[in-house]
């Protein structure tokens, strides 16, 4: 195999070496890439704003009000971000549970993406907490609010991050060249996968369930008792569209890290995923339609919010769904990518419509995020991409594992 890309694994098979770790921490490659030029100032500004936020209170940089206590950081960073991280549980389900081996090459990168997404979005959650020093309370058991949806979501988040870390850990072991750890950690994968899928089902739907008690605050076109189910189903195609999108970008940016075999498999994978997207989107549309009828929502359609609803449902669910179906049959990879992007826009719209646009839609003054909230959000996303890049450039994520890891199974 193309072991030349991993001289580390050969040299450092036995001993754990701090110097090696230190060297790995240093950045690789060119500094003045366009991405760095944009992201570094934004991250620095974001850090500055976060300092102000902790010093002067949440209101100093956000536009949150007493009526709209959750804004962009929850609605976008957490609720939308987690939907996009849904790819990890779907892909591990396909590969490990259903044994669809041809998707194996995307497992690691998807899990890595999912893990980082969770790590950073939980981080964003900490920014949003007014009294973050008490965040440990629901965890250590001195005050279990077990009747709270947020309590369950928080626990499922934390445990899921652990599961994803275990799923990803063989890659870390390969990077460090630790054969013993690799063997143990690989053995834990299937358990972590089963655990992880279960946890995902519940917290993906749980994010929707968070809003169940906001019954009179969310526009009826987006509120229903079925939000949890809708969130769960849409997280499948949201996650997979993200996988398609991220795969496309990764294969351009990290082409030197990708093995030939995985490069070849890529189009087949995208092709297969498009069908799953299409089918789940169809199921989602049917569900949405049933919910719509069930809620007697016809009268809302002929209002501005109703048009907006139609834009979301037709423009960003139905059309990408048809694109997925069409491009699956014609095997048109470009169209699949287009559909994935449209789908992602649709998911962002949906989550924001529930959490921000439709939330207190009837209020006199609407919440519009401040530029500082947006900068902090961007800073979170950029930092995540930095870490992602750092890991991809070092660990065997997109490429093949070192040969010793194969026999180790």
């Amino acid at each position, binding site marked *: 195999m193309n072991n030349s890309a991993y001289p580390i694994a050969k040299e450092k098979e036995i001993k754990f070496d701090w110097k090696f770790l230190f060297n790995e921490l240093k950045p690789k490659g060119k500094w003045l890439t366009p991405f760095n030029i944009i992201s570094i100032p934004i991250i620095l500004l974001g850090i500055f704003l976060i300092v102000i936020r*902790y*010093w*002067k*209170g*949440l209101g*100093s940089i956000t536009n*949150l*009000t*007493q009526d709209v*206590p*959750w804004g962009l950081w929850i609605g976008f960073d957490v609720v939308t971000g987690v939907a996009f991280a849904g790819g990890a549980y779907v892909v591990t*389900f*396909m590969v*490990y*549970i*259903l*044994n*669809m*081996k041809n998707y194996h090459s995307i497992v690691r990168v998807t899990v890595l993406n999912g893990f980082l997404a969770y790590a950073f979005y939980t981080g964003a959650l900490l920014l949003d*907490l*007014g*009294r973050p020093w*008490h*965040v440990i*309370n*629901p965890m250590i058991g001195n*005050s*279990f*609010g077990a*009747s*709270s*949806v*947020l309590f*369950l979501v*928080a626990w499922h988040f934390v445990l899921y991050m652990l599961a994803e870390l275990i799923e990803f850990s063989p890659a870390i072991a390969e990077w460090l060249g630790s054969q013993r750890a690799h063997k143990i950690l690989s053995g834990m994968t*299937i358990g972590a*996968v*089963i*655990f992880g*899928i*279960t946890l995902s*089902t*519940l917290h993906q*739907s*749980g994010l929707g*369930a*968070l809003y*169940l*008690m*906001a*019954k*009179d605050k969310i526009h009826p076109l987006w509120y229903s*008792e*079925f939000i949890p*189910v809708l969130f*769960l*189903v849409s997280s*499948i195609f949201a996650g997979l569209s993200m996988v398609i999108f991220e795969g496309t970008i990764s294969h351009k940016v990290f082409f030197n890290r990708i093995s030939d075999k995985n490069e070849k498999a890529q189009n087949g994978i995208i092709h297969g995923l498009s069908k799953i997207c299409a*089918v789940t989107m169809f*199921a989602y549309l049917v569900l949405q339609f049933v919910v719509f009828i069930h809620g007697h929502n016809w009268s809302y359609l002929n209002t501005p919010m109703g048009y907006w609803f139609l834009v979301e449902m037709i423009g960003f669910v139905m059309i990408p769904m048809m694109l997925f179906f069409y491009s699956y049959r014609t095997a048109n990879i470009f169209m699949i990518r287009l559909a994935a992007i449209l789908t992602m826009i649709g998911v962002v719209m949906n989550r924001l419509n529930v959490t921000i646009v439709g939330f207190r839609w009837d209020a006199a003054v609407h919440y519009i995020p401040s530029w500082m909230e947006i900068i902090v959000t961007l800073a979170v996303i950029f930092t995540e991409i930095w870490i992602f890049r750092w890991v991809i450039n070092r660990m065997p994520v997109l490429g093949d594992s070192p040969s010793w890891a194969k026999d180790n199974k």
Partner: protein
Amino acid sequence: MGLDRRVFFKVLGATGLALAIGKKASATKSSNSDVEFNGILYDATRCVGCRTCEYECATAHGLPAPKDEVEVVRTTNETCNTVVNTFQTSKGEVHIKRQCMHCNEPACGAACLTQAMHKNETGAVTWDGDKCMGCRYCMVSCPYDMPKFEFLKTNPKIQKCDMCFDRQKSGEKPICVTNCPNDALLYGKRRDLIKEGRRRIYEKPELYVDHIYGEREVGGTGWLYLSPVPFEELGMNTTLQQSSYPALTKGFLYSVPSVDLLLPPLLLGIYAATKNNQSKDKEDE
């Protein structure tokens, strides 16, 4: 492969169904009529809008004194736990005091993941700063938007009426009740207050609308309201559901343990069933 995918969707379908249906039947049970909570009966026909309760409340809770000149309709906020608003109605000027309703089954309490928001046996819903992590989920959930957050503090608190919990514990009435010069407020066991409310409506049907606000709204609230005009005219939300708010999430919450317990063995079963393909696939790799 085709078969695998079918299983895939079946599992998802089953999970979705479990989530949706959950134990919906048991979730619709409402009303806490077997618990003897304290409450306060507010009679809008007696209130003259002097705002004494506002001033007393602010002093007792160490909050800034309310302004003398006020806009017509105000809401409570992080420096003010109660407001008395004046409305021009079909029966002339009517005043109405607003504050946290101290729901029988408070949405804020069910929302709180640290139990910082808590319904005490005295009937007061109180906030505990040693537990609260400031997530503001209580604010999202409260149908009356009563918990208020100090957005501009480094160590922010949630503010709302606490029904003078400390006074209650030492057997005293809430400060607003004690100080109302016109007997517009009556403190007592919620059940007795409802009887008293009914009695007043029965004796003077021309004076009151036949509705005790809070008897049923959101599953019953600690504050109960009598009014000479329909409550919509006083800016009260009359479209809220009559059953408890926490029940809205019960279907979901009940389904969590079942999914947590049933899904893993199911997944393990599918894993075992599809494993046979593995040996075949390995050769193509």
